[in-house]
């Protein structure tokens, strides 16, 4: 079953590898993964969709929370959250179908971002089901090529972020102070 996990983590080299390493070490396949900086440039937000049994989810999230670079891992599989995916679609169409394609795109809220004699590049966002549907409609008109962003999600619940406070070192006192 597909599970959706959202992580807030430090934007440091190797942080991504630690998270994906937890998954690959257990033989889990990552369906999609997106990661980008947050408002605070030192932090990143990652959304992962992974194929695992629901009963393994709690253990996986605990293991993620153990990672030093991870500030918070939360399970959004069943939590109130907005989930969106973006897809860029290049569709080749015969001239007589151009208007129909644009009409269909409009129904899905997709917009053309490039146009040429061969066809269009379209941008669409929505939940993965909507995007799947859009792909099958577009595919009916001609050859398509697709790049999907993977799921990004934001929780609708305010979850308190618990962080570890700094630890002061006695040895750290300057020698010559």
């Amino acid at each position, binding site marked *: 079953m597909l599970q959706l996990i959202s992580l807030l*983590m*430090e934007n440091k*080299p*190797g942080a991504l*590898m*630690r998270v994906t*390493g937890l998954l690959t*070490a257990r033989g889990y396949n990552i369906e999609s993964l997106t990661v980008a900086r947050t408002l605070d440039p030192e932090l990143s937000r990652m959304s992962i969709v992974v194929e695992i049994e629901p009963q393994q989810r*709690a*253990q996986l999230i*605990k*293991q993620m*929370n*153990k*990672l*030093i*670079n*991870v*500030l*918070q891992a939360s399970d959004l599989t069943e939590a109130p959250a907005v989930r969106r995916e973006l897809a860029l679609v290049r569709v080749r169409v015969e001239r007589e179908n151009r208007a129909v394609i644009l009409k269909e795109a409009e129904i899905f809220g997709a917009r053309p971002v490039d146009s040429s004699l061969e066809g269009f590049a379209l941008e669409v966002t929505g939940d993965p089901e909507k995007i799947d549907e859009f792909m099958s409609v577009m595919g009916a008109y001609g050859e398509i090529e697709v790049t999907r962003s993977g799921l990004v999600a934001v929780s609708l619940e305010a979850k308190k972020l*618990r*962080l*570890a*406070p*700094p*630890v*002061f*070192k006695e*040895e*750290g*006192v*300057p*020698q010559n102070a």
Partner: protein
Amino acid sequence: MTNGAKIVLECLAREKVECIFGYPGGVTLPLYDALYDSPIRHVLVRHEQNACFAAEGWARATGRVGVCCATSGPGATNLVTGLVDAMMDSIPIVAITGQVSTRLIGSDAFQEADTFGITRSCTKHNFLVKTLADLPQAIHEAFHIAATGRPGPVLVDIPKDVLQAQGRYAPVSSIHLPGYKVFTEGHAGQIRRAAQMIWEARRPFVYAGGGIVAAEASEELRAFVERIDAPAVCTLMGLGALAGTHPNFVSMPGMHGSYAANMGMSEADLLIALGTRFDDRVTGKLSAFAPHAKVIHVDIDPAEIGKNRAADLPVVGDVKRVLKKLNQALDDLAELKPLNEQARAAWRDRVKEWKREHPLEPEFSGDEIKPQHLVSELDRISGGEAILASDVGQHQMWAAQLMRFNHPRLWLNSGGLGSMGFGLPAAIGAQLARPDSLVFALVGDGGFQMSIPELATIANERLPIKIIVMNNGYLGMVRQWQTLFYNNRLSQVTLDGFPDVEKLAGAYGFTGRTLEHPRELRSALRECVDQPGPYLLNVRVTPFENVYPMVPAGAAIHEMVLAPPQPLEVA
């Protein structure tokens, strides 16, 4: 001005490191040059894997962070087994590795390996330090992470140009790792509820693990066990946490645990798991494990709670602090209501009865030395006070069954990973940390041959380690499984060609002796201990002895096999 290498040593000095185990190489030249003038002792081992095992021996014997050092590429990859070993047993280690210069990283440079990537899953955390400015912070953070929370190994990979870069040590006043949350206190309400459950239980059973040793909570454990007067087992990692001679101590539980320990687990109505992780070697078939018991699980690592066995009452915290509070809560309860003494006494009697029915007893024989006999003589001469670094295999299990340790940190063994070749280097680390202690390395003839190069380290450092080889001429544990589960088809388990130990030890300048007759055993051990300096005692034991009781793989722990099914003959 100083350089990166000197800054590394400054950091180590501030972390109060006395001794490093290592092996130099190309990219660590600046570090070794700085060591030339340093008061920190460096012990030159003969293989990097043993540097890590020796650092583990140091850490296991003292509770302090062990430090090892290796060069880039092969040096670093040789550390991997030791790092995983420390990870599995939660042992605090800081490993310092050299790396090729930053401008060469990723170019397949000479002796380059992706140490940061390779050791990601072998460590609690690791660092690749790319600038001098980051160096002191990384090293101090490494020590902090290794030693706090659930301890573990941390690796710091330092490129050569960073070691050479000119600069000054900038004191690190604080460590801020916002994502590193350690819960030490234990939830007060949970602890109160735990006390209630313990008070009401009719058949409580204490299941104490290596966490007690890591948390230095032996005293609290003893007080707790005596407070509730319940039978207690210590896992392989927890042996010595409760003295082996304590009246409430049953034995080790699990695959080679005693009948009483496993029956106690299976019949208990409350299992009080303290700093332990329900390892498969303890639980046997998980679905049949402790079927009648509710579980209180105290652990500092939240990910251990419910990982293997669901906890009816979890407490996340440092087991020392939790036990202190739990003991207090039990005192408070004692004033309110009486304990069901009748049920408790009946339970204690039942466990005692199991112990009487099937005791763990050494076996003696006429012409050949039984391995259990050797262990019981070792126990006698140790008197519960000597350090015993064990290797992995049958001898380890017999020692775990029959040795009685009066204190924690005497029994040093590779529990989780089961790394052969651990015993001898671990004894080196322990002897350096505890120069006045009697240190035995109990090793099989297999594991010993994996660590023979370290005899040179022992000789050079003049370490009075007493190496006892339990020599049955086989890879005994593997052979045991081939005998029991592979129709006695003994495949690649014969270890012919064991060296003459008199010559071997003599080549390194100390005494070696081979022993074959039970009559000589006691006096030979005496001589081995009394003679100053290292001693290599090769004890030829009955070749075909197997470890019992044994829980077959996949069986429930109460379904243990108590004795060999029939007299075994080898084809």
